[in-house]
């Protein structure tokens, strides 16, 4: 039917915003929702009501993203609020992270699933320490696209040199971190310049508005560039009359393309076989790609269960020794010697924190050795030993099969987010006297 074809042929972009209240982040998010007509009359009415109660004349768009009463009462921020909006071209999921004390943890969480990060700066202040931190977290989490939104251009007389200097400084810094795609947009969230509508005050800017860029940036990477990774979630055995011998492995492709007839390795056992069939949620198909959820049938009768990885070449080598960059998420410090659970794709194993090699100063990207432990919001490098081998890729190669969580076995608390391998190429040791091998 015509109505649906118009609205359903859209892709989905997950993105995150980074910036503090002072940078105008809430106003920007409110502006995006409002100007894309995603805020409906009853929501606007509630905001107008709340604004009047606070003695404000105009509706404060920041209130659209206001927190819960529980947060205000307990003085906490729940890490990420998700917002949803759509244009005729695309559906958006916005991970809106509050910019207070828990900042690094929150942004790491929001950025983990994002394909694009909007980093907000105040045009009057330019690139500050916090901006560099936001860029570093986006780079650490391998967010493919970064947008620098230079906000409050109205307060610097919409002057091009101000924008150009900030954009230049940020782009250079982000590139040094390995961020490949940076686009800078001069905006005023309050006045609405270049957020949804092009600005009438900045003729010198020929680029897209923020929303235009969000609508057109490519979503996802090309699955044919990456080897197939299929973590087995569940074994489907109907044992019914009709499907007596059916044995399928249910999962979601973490990366790559899988075709019937492909040679695959099952890890950690190392058995090799071929793909005999693929069922796309009830419909047989001969090809599937990330991030589709499918059921895979294999040619040989191999013992496979939840937690195994079906991989195309080059397959990772299963290991019990893991070096990783981590972000510690919990108030309790992560200490060497800690016995934890490690959740990687669909497999959870026991693990020992053998060593905390160093902490990374996220503002300067310097290594700080001699860390006793990692506190909440700390980024660091750790060495782990697991009870069973894991088939990990490096996080640089694969965000899904290179990531893991550390969990407290006693109460199930999520302690730490982990990314296999080195964080940045540019992380450098500082004080030579801390390097005991000299």
């Amino acid at each position: 039917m015509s109505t649906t074809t118009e609205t359903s042929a859209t892709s989905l972009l997950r993105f995150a915003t980074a910036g503090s209240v002072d940078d105008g982040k809430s106003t920007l998010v409110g502006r995006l929702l409002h100007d894309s007509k995603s805020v409906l009359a009853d929501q606007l009415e509630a905001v107008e009501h709340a604004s009047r109660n606070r003695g404000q004349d105009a509706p404060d768009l920041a209130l659209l993203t206001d927190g819960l009463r529980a947060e205000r009462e307990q003085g906490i921020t729940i890490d990420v609020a998700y917002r949803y909006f759509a244009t005729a071209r695309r559906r958006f999921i916005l991970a809106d992270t509050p910019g207070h004390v828990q900042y690094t943890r929150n942004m790491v969480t929001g950025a983990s699933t994002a394909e694009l990060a909007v980093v907000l700066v105040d045009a009057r202040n330019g690139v500050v320490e916090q901006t560099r931190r936001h860029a570093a977290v986006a780079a650490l989490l391998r967010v493919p696209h970064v947008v620098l939104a230079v906000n409050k251009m109205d307060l610097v007389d919409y002057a091009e040199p101000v924008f150009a200097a900030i954009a230049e400084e940020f782009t250079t810094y982000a590139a040094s971190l390995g961020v490949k795609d940076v686009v800078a947009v001069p905006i005023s969230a309050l006045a609405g310049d270049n957020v949804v509508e092009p600005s009438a005050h900045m003729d010198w800017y020929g680029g897209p508005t923020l929303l235009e860029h969000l609508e057109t940036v490519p979503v996802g990477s090309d699955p044919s560039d990456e080897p197939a990774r299929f973590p087995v979630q569940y074994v489907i055995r109907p044992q019914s009359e009709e499907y007596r011998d059916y044995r399928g492995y249910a999962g979601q492709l973490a990366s790559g393309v899988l075709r019937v007839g492909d040679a695959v390795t099952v890890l950690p056992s190392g058995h090799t076989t071929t793909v005999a069939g693929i069922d796309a949620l009830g419909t047989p198909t001969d090809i599937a790609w990330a991030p589709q959820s499918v059921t895979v049938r294999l040619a040989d009768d191999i013992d496979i269960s939840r937690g195994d990885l079906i991989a195309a070449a080059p397959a990772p080598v299963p290991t019990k020794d893991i070096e990783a960059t981590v972000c510690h998420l919990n108030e309790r410090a992560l200490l060497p010697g800690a016995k934890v659970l490690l959740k990687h794709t669909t497999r959870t194993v026991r693990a020992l924190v053998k060593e905390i090699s160093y902490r990374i100063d996220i503002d300067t990207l310097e290594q700080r050795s001699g860390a006793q432990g990692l506190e909440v919001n700390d980024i660091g490098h750790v060495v782990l030993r697991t009870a069973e081998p894991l088939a990990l890729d490096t996080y640089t190669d694969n965000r899904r099969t290179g990531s893991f969580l550390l969990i407290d076995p006693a109460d199930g608390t999520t302690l730490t987010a982990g990314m296999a391998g080195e964080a940045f190429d540019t992380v450098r040791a500082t004080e030579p006297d801390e390097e005991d091998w000299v």
Partner: protein
Amino acid sequence: MTTATRTLPDTLENPYALSHLDALEAESVHIFREVAGEFERPVILFSGGKDSIVMLHLALKAFHPAPVPFALLHVDTGHNFPEVIEYRDRTAARHNLRLHVASVQDFIDDGRLRERPDGTRNPLQTVPLLDAIESHKFDAVFGGGRRDEEKARAKERVFSLRDEFGAWDPRRQRPELWSLYNGRHAPGEHVRVFPLSNWTELDVWQYIEREGIELPEIYYAHEREVFKRDGMWLTAGAWGGPKEHETPETRLIRYRTVGDMSCTGAVDSDAATNADIIAEIAASRLTERGATRADDKLSEAAMEDRKREGYF
């Protein structure tokens, strides 16, 4: 191995493009399978409303050709639409699923719950729900809640930990990164799981249309005797309406959400097909809860308060 740097436009030239419905479906199926792999006794909350119907549809696809490895649970307020109850029973039978019904009326009859002065029974569902979870020892409870519905839901996790009283403590909610869901819980605790977290009302309707999912007929425009209360069209019935000053009239309406008859309002609509409804929602100036739910108008934080007590 190479790092993927090449990206493709999301147009027809890209053979690997996924529509937003494909992406949402893949994510929801992943969530269902995670729960099947990690929990002992999951259950799907099934009200016969569109969100729970979409949930069941996704679960059927996730485990095909095997049956859905979960039972259904319905909290019946006693004021449900008869068309919806009929749909519920027919659907459970068709898929050969076990249906548990927790009855608010039973709890009122034996004194464990008392009728509210305003007659609405929505807030009364929490006690029978938690009782059913406890007595059946359900450890994962699928709910159809969506983050776009309401402010208190915008910060809800996909896996939401509930303590032994069924309560939601914001301090104990775990950060969710990548697609790694941590479902560990102590005995007596359970996890609410929301596979539709990232769907919007429009996505749900587009998916219903694409998949050809049958819904109870009250979602489509029909003539019905209704009366106005608090700015909403409510169905006349034994639950307690209309009162003396309220005048019933016959109007062409449809239900945008389906819940307890006492607090679910109908909207004026001539949308008779899914396509009509999609067009209507796309043009709507009100959210579905704003348009149709009296219970959310109780206070600014009404939903948040109910959620902390263990509501859906």
